[in-house]
């Protein structure tokens, strides 16, 4: 495998750290500014709060992908599936919390189950009424899937594009499965009409702010975990695996084990992102598993600059900002723009926006 652009793990220098904390602070202000009266010049609309909250969860997903791809060279096209699985786990919790307030008024069964004639809750729905359990499952299920898939794939040395195709096929298979009504996950329609979480009605500004801050804390935490990994010797092993995996094996490292470790962490982070995403957008359906979603998330990382953690975050925010603006300003152009981004970044900007910036600094 060819050496991708030689990038070192980001060494958080003092300036970088300042910029990052500044950015976190600005983000943290958003829900507060939302509380200002609408007449105030500094007032931030509800739309901004909800969309920024969503982007923060995307940024976590981008970090997860960057850890696997940018550092370790595992181009997973299945992270959208880990994200969706985390989202579904949280969605199951939110569905259970609706309780008798559903359209059919059944005390335990969600509406779609009443509609489909389920006599009782399927066993795998048990326990999801408890938040800690649901939250644990949102991390555990993606992690477990990554463990199984990763073990099978890495053990038989499936690397590069083969792994990408395999993970994409897996995502596709999951999408097909979740579209089925008899899976017990609401089929085509997925979950929606959520009412509350942790005792807060989801529509209240308080709930929005809490979810926003929870996402922000999760982003900072994920960033910290990824930084810890990237600056440790493990981070250097990852880069070495990315550039010359077989050589690492001859040094006595079990690359299967190392990759599996990173892949599982990455999947758990993606699951965490999904779990925070669903209560903020209020819906989860099988469309989240669509292979296009996974690959779009990869391009956030590529645009920002893979192999640098800042890049992943920057990419997630900037591409999604572009998407939000363009899909309203010129909806027909968005797919051209996104497709163009894929082409432009791979051909002309292999180090992404961050690379562009740091090159200017070096000059």
């Amino acid at each position, binding site marked *: 495998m060819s050496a991708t652009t030689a990038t070192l793990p980001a060494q958080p220098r003092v300036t970088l750290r300042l910029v990052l904390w500044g950015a976190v602070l600005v983000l943290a202000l958003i829900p507060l500014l939302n509380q200002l009266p609408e007449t105030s010049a500094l007032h931030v609309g509800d739309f901004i709060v909800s969309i920024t909250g969503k982007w923060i969860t995307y940024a976590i997903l981008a970090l997860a992908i960057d850890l696997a791809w940018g550092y370790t060279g595992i181009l997973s096209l299945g992270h959208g599936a880990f994200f969706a699985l985390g989202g579904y786990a949280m969605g199951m919790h939110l569905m259970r919390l609706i309780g008798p307030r559903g359209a059919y008024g059944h005390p335990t069964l969600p509406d779609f189950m009443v509609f489909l004639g389920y006599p009782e809750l399927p066993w795998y729905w048990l326990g999801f009424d408890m938040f800690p359990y649901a939250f644990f499952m949102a991390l555990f299920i993606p992690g477990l899937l990554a463990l199984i898939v990763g073990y099978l794939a890495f053990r038989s040395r*499936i690397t590069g594009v083969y792994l990408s*195709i395999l993970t994409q096929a897996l995502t596709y298979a999951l999408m097909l499965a979740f579209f089925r009504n008899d899976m017990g996950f609401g089929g085509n329609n997925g979950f929606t009409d959520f009412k509350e979480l942790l005792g807060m009605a989801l529509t209240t500004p308080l709930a929005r702010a809490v979810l926003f801050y929870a996402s922000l804390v999760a982003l900072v935490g994920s960033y910290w975990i990824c930084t810890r990994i990237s600056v440790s010797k493990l981070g250097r092993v990852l880069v070495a695996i990315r550039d010359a995996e077989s050589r690492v094996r001859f040094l006595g490292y079990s690359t299967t084990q190392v990759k599996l470790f990173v892949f599982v962490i990455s999947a758990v982070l993606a699951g965490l992102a999904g779990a925070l995403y669903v209560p903020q957008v209020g819906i989860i359906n099988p469309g989240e598993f669509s292979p296009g979603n996974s690959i779009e998330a990869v391009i956030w990382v590529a645009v920002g600059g893979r192999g640098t953690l800042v890049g992943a975050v920057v990419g997630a925010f900037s591409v999604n900002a572009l998407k939000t603006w363009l899909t309203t300003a010129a909806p*027909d152009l968005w797919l051209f723009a996104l497709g163009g981004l894929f082409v432009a970044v791979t*051909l002309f900007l292999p180090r992404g926006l961050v690379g562009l910036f740091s090159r200017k600094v070096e000059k």
Partner: protein
Amino acid sequence: MLLAILLLVSPARAQDAFTAALPGLAGGFGQIAEAVEKLGASADPRALPLLQALQEGRLLKREDGTLLLQTDAGTSEVPTGRPAEAGDAEAVRVNNRVRGALRGALGSLQILSTNPEERLKAAEDVFRSRSAQNIAPLEAALARETIPAIRAQLELSLAASRLASPDNAVRLQGINALAEVTDQNARALLLETKAQAPDLARQIDGAVAKIEGRLKVRQMVETFFQGLSLGSVLLLAALGLAVTFGVMGVINMAHGEMVMLGAYATYMVQEALSGTALAPFALPLAIPAAFLLAAAVGAVLERGLIRYLYGRPLETLLMTFGVGMILQQAVRLIFGAQNREVVSPAWMQGTLTLGGLSLTANRVWIIVFGLLVLGLVVAAIRYTRFGLEMRAVVQNRRIAATMGIRTGRVDALTFAFGSGIAGMAGVALSQIDNVSPNLGTGYIIDSFMVVVFGGVGSLAGTLVGALTLGVLNKVMEPYAGAVLAKVVVLVGIMLFIQRRPRGMFALKGRAAEA
């Protein structure tokens, strides 16, 4: 025997039967049904209009039991045919039992019709009515019938009617005849009879087992054909990929869009030729058009973008995915997001019947087309100068270059060739799938699975891989459902790659490391 049949249909006896049955029609439901059956067995030409009238509520009954027949020409008395006033006469009413008897009786009368289609339909109706009364008319009809398909149905109906006979010997005749038929209905009928004739249970069981055995074989053949048909679709979709990915090692995620362009090329050719003398040949003419369009796009893609990313497969994957998005969106803007209709020419419509199997014509054509395209690819790679240069460049680019081969040109041509094949696949898919901008997305993952499963770089592997996956999918569908079958196949491939990471037809040794 022949004499008996002649006697049965002789007018003298028939007349008797006809007039004798008439009074029953004025009675209760049980009597009516009996009369209907007798009329059906009478083979009398007057019985048919009468029974049709009964079915349509045009047979009236006076208080005194006189029957009146209403037609467009007026009302007349039965059987004399004297004109009459309807007056306070009421329609003869029918219940389900009478309706059943009617169906059989009408059938047994119509099986003598001069119109073959009517005869066939009538024979089918008789089968469903299952009355011993029909035995005689069926035997009569069989003696005259010359068309094989109708004869077959008549024999089936005769056997079914014999089952309804109270005579075990006749029943046994029916059982033995049905045992030779490969038909789901025959099986159901036998099982029903078993309850009524417990003393024939052994023979019936034997007959049912024979039928089931043959049904199973037929179903297996049908499943296999469906699998083959799906397999050839996969083969078509994957062949182009087998060239660009398998031979060149370029991962082209826009491959599905090349297929899509081929389907739209078919649509454009159809529209351009519509109303001209060439319109019936639009589909064959679309094949070169689709090849050229997709090949041209492929060549531009390779020279303009992909070649800058050689040796960086992950980047190529992302870049070509973006290209696919752009192509999709461009087509969506030009042609609209809704499906475009590509008409199948007459020779591709309908079904072919082959020894009791009915195969959809367009599926058969796709299998043929898939194999033809495979042959074309193999021939192009093996026997042409271009194929030779292509193999040389793949094996050792630098040495090929020193031999005077323009490797850049060969790359472009190879990629265009692979894309063109995808375009031809689009022609075939336009016949069985919706021609829409995202036509290709449904095939890309399957195509990659086929190539990986079969063994990258091996055309034989692609063929076997496509057919295996197609058949596996169809074999599993009845048990697991279409979607789950797909999921199972995907997971199966993952596990298969565990055992043979390089696919079924793996290259070994130094060639595999390159």
